[in-house]
């Protein structure tokens, strides 16, 4: 078992343990605060991780990501404000529970559900990732191209808005990803004479602009915390026997839903939590309870989004294809550390994969402690006004970006992307698909070029390879589904 011979010894070194704790702590922190999600936090702290070992950096950043999934439910339940997008559905039944004085048990069930969903999700990750790797090792350029293309098209489905807009954003992202010197010909593309753009636009700059600065501008004045000092004691958190009994099956079903949607590109925690809620409402013997404080409506989605958060590492670590924008940033972190993501990652860096997986378990245990005995701390945190918080976020953005290459050019670029991002927000154009396009664009170009050189420019020969053919067929099916849903949503709007 590599997990025990390589994984835990790696994860249990003092450094890694400390950064695992720091990650899940910060993740819970930003998850609790509405207006900063896991994605913003991961991009904000990415520059700090450059100073760490690659393994430690990954453990740290991943901790922030799944920590935010835990913390996000606190604000949903107590204030009816989702801490992160994937906790939005928790508001529906969580907040009514608070108004009925059952906030304590709701938070308790959430923490337990998150823990069970998360830890079982890790088992799925362990089972699935190596299996996918052995398949992926036989991949040539054509198969890679097809798999990357599948990720790119799936990115068009992650938006909450209309798919046509997400797909357009993916394409804009690809263009941004291709800025800089073309490795093949040495031609400069869209550098506009700026020497600093020869190596392309740094990922951190795009993420900080679109998710950091733009988010801050949009949040100022709109986030008003309800300054209700609610005391949540440990005693008040103990759920009744009935509440426990009602939560068991939703948690298990939530895990199933989360670990199905988690590894699929483009879906992830948010869609999983909404699916889990819908399923719970359908299987319930008294669906009229939902929306009025049904504990099942909290337990299912929270288990699902944590299972999805863990299993979304499957394509990222096994294939090097990010299923979500946060995963794209984690891949970017690997690249910055000089580690090439892809199917060879687990074989070449077993300590990285198994150490990370082991740290997930440690992190989930830490999160359970952070979210049950220490819940009072987070409730207090909700009383910090945003006007004191956002200048600190901006300070972190500026200095973090400056430290990338010790140049203010990158800070100016962040300002440009921040303004673009705010404009996109006004137009309801989502930045997450753009970021995936930005990451996958250059990879796709490289594989596309290689695949077509091998076939002598023959497109049909790409499809004739069996695995590539199947993957291309999946791409085609996904495009058809996208077109279908575009047409259907248009009809609905007209009607």
């Amino acid at each position, binding site marked *: 078992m590599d997990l025990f011979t390589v994984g835990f010894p790696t994860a249990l070194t003092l450094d890694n343990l400390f950064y695992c704790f720091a990650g899940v702590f910060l993740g819970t922190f930003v998850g609790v605060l509405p207006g900063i999600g896991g994605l913003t936090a991961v991009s904000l702290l990415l520059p700090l991780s450059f100073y760490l070992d690659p393994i430690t950096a990954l453990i740290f950043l991943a901790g922030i990501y799944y920590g935010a999934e835990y913390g996000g439910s606190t604000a949903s339940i107590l204030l009816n404000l989702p801490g992160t997008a994937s906790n939005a559905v928790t508001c529906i039944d969580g907040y009514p529970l608070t108004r009925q004085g059952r906030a304590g048990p709701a938070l308790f069930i959430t923490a337990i559900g998150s823990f069970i969903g998360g830890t079982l999700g890790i088992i799925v990750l362990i089972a699935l990732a190596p299996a996918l790797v052995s398949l992926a090792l036989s991949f040539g350029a054509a198969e890679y191209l097809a798999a990357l293309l599948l990720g790119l098209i799936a990115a068009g489905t992650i938006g909450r808005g209309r798919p046509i*807009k997400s797909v357009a954003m993916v*394409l804009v992202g690809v263009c941004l990803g291709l800025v800089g010197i073309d490795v*093949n010909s040495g031609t400069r593309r869209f550098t506009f004479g700026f020497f600093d753009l020869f190596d392309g636009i740094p990922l951190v700059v795009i993420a900080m602009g679109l998710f950091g600065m733009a988010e801050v*501008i949009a949040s100022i004045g709109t986030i008003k915390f309800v300054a209700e000092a609610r005391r949540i004691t440990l005693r008040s958190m103990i759920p009744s026997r009935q509440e426990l009994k009602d939560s068991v099956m939703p948690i298990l079903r939530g895990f199933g839903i989360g670990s199905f949607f988690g590894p699929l590109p483009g879906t992830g925690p948010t869609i999983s939590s909404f699916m889990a809620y819908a399923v719970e409402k359908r299987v319930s013997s008294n669906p009229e309870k939902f929306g009025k404080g049904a504990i099942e409506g909290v337990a299912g989605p929270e288990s699902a989004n944590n299972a999805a958060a863990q299993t979304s590492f499957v394509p990222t670590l096994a294939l090097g294809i990010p299923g979500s924008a946060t995963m794209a940033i984690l891949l970017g972190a690997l690249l910055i550390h000089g580690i090439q993501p892809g199917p060879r990652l687990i074989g070449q860096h077993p300590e990285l994969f198994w150490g990370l997986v082991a740290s997930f378990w440690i992190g989930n245990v830490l999160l359970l402690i952070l979210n049950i005995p220490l819940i009072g701390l987070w409730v207090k945190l909700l009383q910090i006004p945003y*006007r004191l918080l956002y*200048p600190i976020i901006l300070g972190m953005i500026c200095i973090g970006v400056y430290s990338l290459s*010790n140049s203010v050019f990158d800070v100016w670029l962040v300002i440009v992307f921040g303004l673009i991002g705010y404009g996109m927000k006004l137009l309801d154009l989502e930045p997450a698909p753009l970021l995936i396009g930005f990451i996958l664009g250059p990879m796709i170009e490289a594989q596309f070029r290689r695949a077509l050189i091998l076939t002598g*420019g023959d497109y049909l020969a790409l499809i004739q390879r069996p695995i590539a053919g199947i993957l291309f067929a999946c791409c085609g099916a996904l495009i058809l589904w996208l077109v279908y849903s575009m047409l259907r949503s248009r009809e609905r*709007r007209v009607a």
Partner: protein
Amino acid sequence: MLQLNHKDLVGGVLITLLGGFVGYSAVGLGIGDASRMGPGYMLAIVAAGMIVLGIAMAVGSARYQDPLPRIAWRPLIAVTAGMSAFAALLGHLGLIPAVLLLIGLSALGDRDARPVSTLVLAVSVSVGMWVVFVYGLRIPLPAFALDF
């Protein structure tokens, strides 16, 4: 009915224009052919997609209402001014004055900002940043400078 005050019309037109610019540049960069792709080959494909989707968005927008939201001018200007001040002055005045200006200006974005709490915040954040990034992580930046 053509409605100018419409998110998807504005978005669609902008994406189409961007696609047009990328496509034009791609031709200039050299497209090549499938077996020997030039630097513009992939860009040309992407540009074509952007133009098609942009036009589809703009045309489709005629069927429903989706008015533009109001721009939050105060936060927008305050945050942009604060970050620009940081970028412009970091090299000339040093880290602490640049962060003081960044916090001071951007805090004006919220109507409820109070002078005293803003000052306390600005001072503590700038000192904190110096401790973490310059003292801790050894980023080569002076705390104060006067260099024009």
